[in-house]
Every structure is written in structure tokens, then in C-alpha cells.
């Protein structure tokens, strides 16, 4: 499979490097360090803001049509934070980001220092009673003292799962949104070969999973003229699945609406026109729930026209998220094409 712009092999390498890294919301340092190494030779300016988002600016060639464009992908993944340690050394936890109890049962999780735990649950009369506060993480500690020394209250665990490939698809944890971060890195590479007239702020944001927080404060500082989030979206192509339009292999998903955002019609149409003109596979996305960084960005200060390019993903917020590399490459191509075209003023009257 060959993409129009993206180096698919390099894209996959980025995902394989970033997705296994440890980075739950609020503790993204390790992911940021990996990304920073890639970003530093590609950007004109790199800074870390006060909540920890990494902002890399690639200055544009300029011109009367040049704009400030913000592209955001989030570094954080969902996790479980230890809130209490029982006398027997079992760890009680609170969700960092969205978790379903059924997805956790029997899973392995890993802490920042590499300590691995298994998720267990209290004995239940009915599996329907399974709730997060009836579950715990077991790191095999002999008792409270040992557990407190290894994984004190405040420690956060993430899914312990490697990335595996199957055909054109990748399966693993944190593809939400390390695949978006990979797209952003590949975009930065492509902007060297295909320079943009616009000032492009590539924002690797923090704390998206707990309320789109990093994107909000980053957008406040950048004041973009246009913003795009690069994130995963759901897929409707599994048995008796949700009735959604998005399918794996259907191309870059152009967001129309989710619970946080109605994509600006001008932005959405530009994406559709650009994809159509350049023969980049795309599909329309309506997500009846959920949100992305664009949801926070578009309401910053006096407002920002914003949209999103999404990567359809099966089994979201599980250790076995699945994406198709053809969609990841198409998303990258679409962003390159968007940034290298001219953008007229929106006549949104």
C-alpha cells in the first residue's frame, strides 16, 4: 500500500515506539521525552507549557494567505490511579479517563517503574454488580508495607500490552492517541519536503482523556486561526456493532460532529474538498458520544474554527485497540494536503 505523501513504514515505527511508552493523563513525561527527541530537529521552536503539553512550531513560508494553524494530538492514555492500599497489599484505584469495569477484569497493568499487576475483583453474587470500587490491582505484594513502598497512593498504572501487527492492522494499547501523535510526527517530516505557507503549531497535548485540558490552555497561548485535532474515533464494523459510518480501511475520517464539537462547516468542507481533489481515501464521521481536543480548542477566547481528522479504531479504551495503517497514512496525507494548500477566509454568514 502506498500513500500519497506519508512514509507508511516510518509511521508504523513511530506508533511502535510511542504506544508502549508509559503516559497516563497527568504523567506524560516519558512520552513527551520520546516525542521531543523526534521533534527537535524538525521544528523552529519547541517549548513545554505549564501543564506539560509539548508545542513545536514550524514557521511557514509566509504570504498574504498565511495563517496560524494548530494541530493537536494527545500524548496521554487512560490509566488507573491507586487511591488506597488494603492491609493485604491490594491496591484500590480510581479511573483516570474512561474505563468500563468489564474491560479491566483479568487484565495486566503496569506502573511507571515497571511493576506489573493483575486486576481482580471482590466475590460478586451477580456479575452485573461489577464496579470499579469492587475491583483492585494485585502486584503480588506480601502486605501493605511492601505495596506502599512499590506503588504508593497516587501511582498510576496503564494497560500492559504490546503492539502486534496483523496484515495492515495494528493491535495494542494506547493507539488512542499515540497513533495521532505518530501522524503528527510524520506530518512534521513531510512539511520539510512540502513546506507550508502557514505557521504550524504541532501540539502534543496532555490530559485529553480527563477533560481536554491541555488543549484548552495550549490554544489560549497560541491563538490559532484554525485548528485540527488528530485523534481516534470509533468504528461501526463489528458484529451487532454500533451503527456508525466509520470502518477500518475506509480512509481518513473527517469529523462532522461528536459530543464536544460540531466541526466548523468551512473546515470540514475544506478537508472533504482537499481529500477528493487529491484522491485521498476518506469517510465522514459522526460520533454520537465522546470528544476530542478540538472540543476545547474551538471555545477558547473568542472562538477558533476547528475540525478533526480521525483514525477509526475498534475496541476503544481496551488493551487491544485496533487501527488500520491505511487509515493512519490517509490521515497523514490529508493533513499534509490541507497545510500545503491556500485557505480562503471563511464566508460563514
Amino acid at each position, binding site marked *: 500500500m502506498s500513500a500519497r505523501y506519508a512514509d507508511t513504514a516510518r509511521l508504523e515505527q513511530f506508533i511502535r515506539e510511542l504506544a508502549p511508552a508509559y503516559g497516563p*493523563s*497527568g*504523567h506524560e513525561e516519558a512520552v513527551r521525552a520520546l516525542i521531543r527527541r523526534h521533534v527537535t530537529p524538525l521544528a523552529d521552536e519547541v*517549548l*513545554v*507549557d*505549564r*501543564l*506539560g503539553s509539548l508545542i513545536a512550531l514550524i514557521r511557514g513560508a509566509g504570504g498574504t494567505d498565511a495563517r496560524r494553524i494548530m494541530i493537536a494530538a494527545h500524548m496521554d492514555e487512560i490509566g488507573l*490511579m491507586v*487511591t*488506597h492500599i*488494603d492491609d493485604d497489599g491490594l491496591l*484500590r484505584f*480510581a*479511573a*483516570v479517563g474512561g474505563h468500563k469495569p468489564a474491560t479491566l477484569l483479568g487484565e495486566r497493568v503496569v506502573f511507571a517503574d515497571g511493576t506489573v499487576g493483575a486486576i481482580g475483583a471482590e466475590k460478586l453474587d451477580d456479575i452485573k454488580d461489577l464496579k470499579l*470500587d469492587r475491583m483492585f490491582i494485585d502486584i503480588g505484594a506480601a502486605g501493605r508495607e511492601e505495596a506502599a513502598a512499590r506503588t504508593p*497512593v*497516587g501511582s498510576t498504572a496503564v494497560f500492559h500490552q504490546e503492539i502486534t501487527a496483523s496484515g495492515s492492522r495494528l493491535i495494542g494499547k494506547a493507539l488512542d492517541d499515540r497513533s495521532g501523535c505518530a501522524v503528527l510526527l510524520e506530518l512534521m517530516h513531510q512539511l520539510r519536503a512540502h513546506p507550508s505557507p502557514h505557521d504550524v503549531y504541532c501540539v502534543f497535548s496532555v*490530559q485529553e482523556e*480527563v*477533560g481536554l*485540558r*491541555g488543549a*484548552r*490552555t*495550549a490554544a*489560549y*497561548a497560541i491563538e490559532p486561526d484554525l485548528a485540527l485535532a488528530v485523534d481516534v474515533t470509533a468504528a461501526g464494523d463489528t458484529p451487532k456493532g454500533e451503527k456508525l459510518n466509520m470502518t477500518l480501511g475506509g480512509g481518513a475520517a473527517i469529523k462532522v460532529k461528536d459530543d464536544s464539537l460540531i466541526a466548523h462547516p468551512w473546515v470540514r468542507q475544506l478537508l472533504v474538498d482537499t481529500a477528493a481533489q487529491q484522491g485521498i481515501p476518506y469517510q465522514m464521521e459522526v460520533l454520537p458520544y465522546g470528544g476530542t481536543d478540538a472540543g476545547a480548542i474551538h471555545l477558547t477566547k473568542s472562538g477558533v474554527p476547528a475540525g478533526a481528522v480521525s483514525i477509526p479504531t475498534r475496541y476503544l479504551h481496551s488493551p487491544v485497540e485496533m487501527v488500520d495503517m491505511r487509515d493512519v497514512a490517509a490521515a497523514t496525507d490529508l493533513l499534509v494536503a490541507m497545510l500545503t494548500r491556500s485557505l480562503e477566509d471563511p464566508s460563514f454568514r
Partner: protein
Amino acid sequence: MILRELSEIPGVSGDEHRVRERIWQAVRDRVDGGRVDSLGNLITWKGAGKPGPKVMIAAHMDEIGLMITRIDNDGLLRFRTVGGIDDRVLAAKAVRVGPDAVPGVIGMKPIHLLKADEAKKPVPEQDLVIDIGAASKEQAEQVVRPGHYAAFSTAYAEVGDGVVKGKAFDDRAGCALLVELLALEFPFPVYGVFTVQEEIGLRGARVAAYDVAPDLALVLEGTTCADIPETEPHGQSTLLGAGPAITVMDGTNIPARPLVEGLVAAAEARNIPWQWKRTAFGGTDAGSIHLSRAGVPAATVSVPCRYIHSPCAFMSLRDFENTRRLVAGFLEDIPGIAARLPGA
């Protein structure tokens, strides 16, 4: 004693001015200046010209309470809650209504018609009334109006060994702490902000943080403490008497790790007892402060309060004093802590 006085003043969200006036009296000689903003926040400062970091310390003046929505023809008052109050703590409580603090009682109507199974369910607030002893709507209207507030009328008192009971420890405890802390001197600018409307959406803090634009913020709160029978240890949140509670995460903020580690280190270095806040529900002013402008690292320290968000809460005076010592120590350590924040 400032904690006693502040706890007894009525000041439901949106009606904080009496609390603010008493606080201003207490701090005006300790700070370089103060002003009241358009929402009613009291913003005080000392050392504005000093080198950074600029530190904001916040405590909210408002308490949960009730607002009168309608006066019935029979002189009984209909109301809705302001802030999160469990229906079950309302029935049969004593309140003071309106600017004249008219005494009243929350009654259920019509209690004599309750069937056996109805008596088992909590009465929703819409079916409760406040009775001020008026025989008619006209009589009631002499002293109260729709839109007036009602606050619980619990008196402050010491009970047991160093434990006090009273209303509104959430967050007059935080306010009292901040009043005491503003007597100290600091080598960096400190903004002591007494916020409004925290209980109805962290509102005052949002605009105050925008105005002050601090480099980091610490929020002082009263927090949940459910160390009572039939609560699992991991659901207890905090324990009365175990010291100030440090938040690792709540529903509105994941505090920056250098601030959390700084609080723990400040406590350990000074032998101050402390505990984690062990549940992740709820929110504090740090939730809106940390998202202000381009972001502000913010953390929360709390005094445990049993029976929080009810007419009568319990607090340990030792916890109160240890919280004061912890925050004072943390402020001494600020320069080292600030250097470890992202973007520093």
C-alpha cells in the same frame, strides 16, 4: 476565634458578602492591598513587586444552602438547594431565612398523609417546605421574599477531645487558615483569594485566576471524611485526626506532581502528620484555576470534615492546626518546588 465566627456567618453561594466583610476586617492589616471583583471575590495581595513565582492561595467563602422559590398561600416557603445537598439531610433541620435571619424549620408536607412505604423513601426537596410560623402568605411576606437565601443554623461548639462541630467548615476552615497564613511574610508575591460560588461550579475562582494570573496555586478546602461504620476503607476518603489531606486526583484536577511531592516533603521534613485523600470524586477551585489562561499548576490540601455538606459537620482542631503548619512549610519550600514544574 476566627474559625468559629466565620462558620456561623450565613453565606450561601451568591450571598457571600457578610463573610467577605468579616474576612476583610481580619486581613486588611496583614496585606498590602485588596479589592472585590465583579463576582464578589476578595482578592488580596502582599509583595506584588517581589521576584516570582507569583503564588495564589484560594479558599472559598460560600457554603451550601437553600433559596426560597415561592411562598405558598398557607405561609409555608418552597425552596431549592444551592450546591450539592443530599435530600436526606434536609428534613427537620433548623434554618435561618433571609437578610433578617428569620428562624425556620424544614418540614415535610403533608407528613400525616405519608403511607408506610412512602415513609421509607427520602422526601425530595421539591416536596419539602420551610416553616417560619407564618399563618398566611401575607404574614410570611412581611419578613421573607422569593429569592432570599436560607442557611443552616448550627452553632459552633467543641465536642469531645479537640473536635468541633458546626456548619460550613467547607470551606470556612480554608478561609480561617488563609486568614492566619496571610500574617506570614514571603519572599515572593502572594495573592490570598477568598472566592465565591465554588459550590455551584467553581465560578469565582475561574475569573479570579484569570485576573491574578498566578504561576502556581494552592487551594485550601474542607473535604469528605467518611471514617464511619459500614464504609469500606477505600471509600472513607480521609480519617478524622490523621492530619491534612493531600489530593492526588479529583474530578476536576490532576495536581502537578511536583506540587504533590512538595506537599508530602514539606510534611515529612517537619514531622507533620498527613494523609492522602483517598477518593477521586468531587472538585475544588483548583479545577477551574489550573485551566486558566495558558495553564496554572494547582494543588489542593484539605481539612477532613465528617458529615460534610450537611447542616452539621465535625472537624478536628489538631487537623486544622497541622494543615496550617503544612501549608506554611510548603510556602517556605516554594522556590525549590516551582523549579520542578513543567515549563519552568
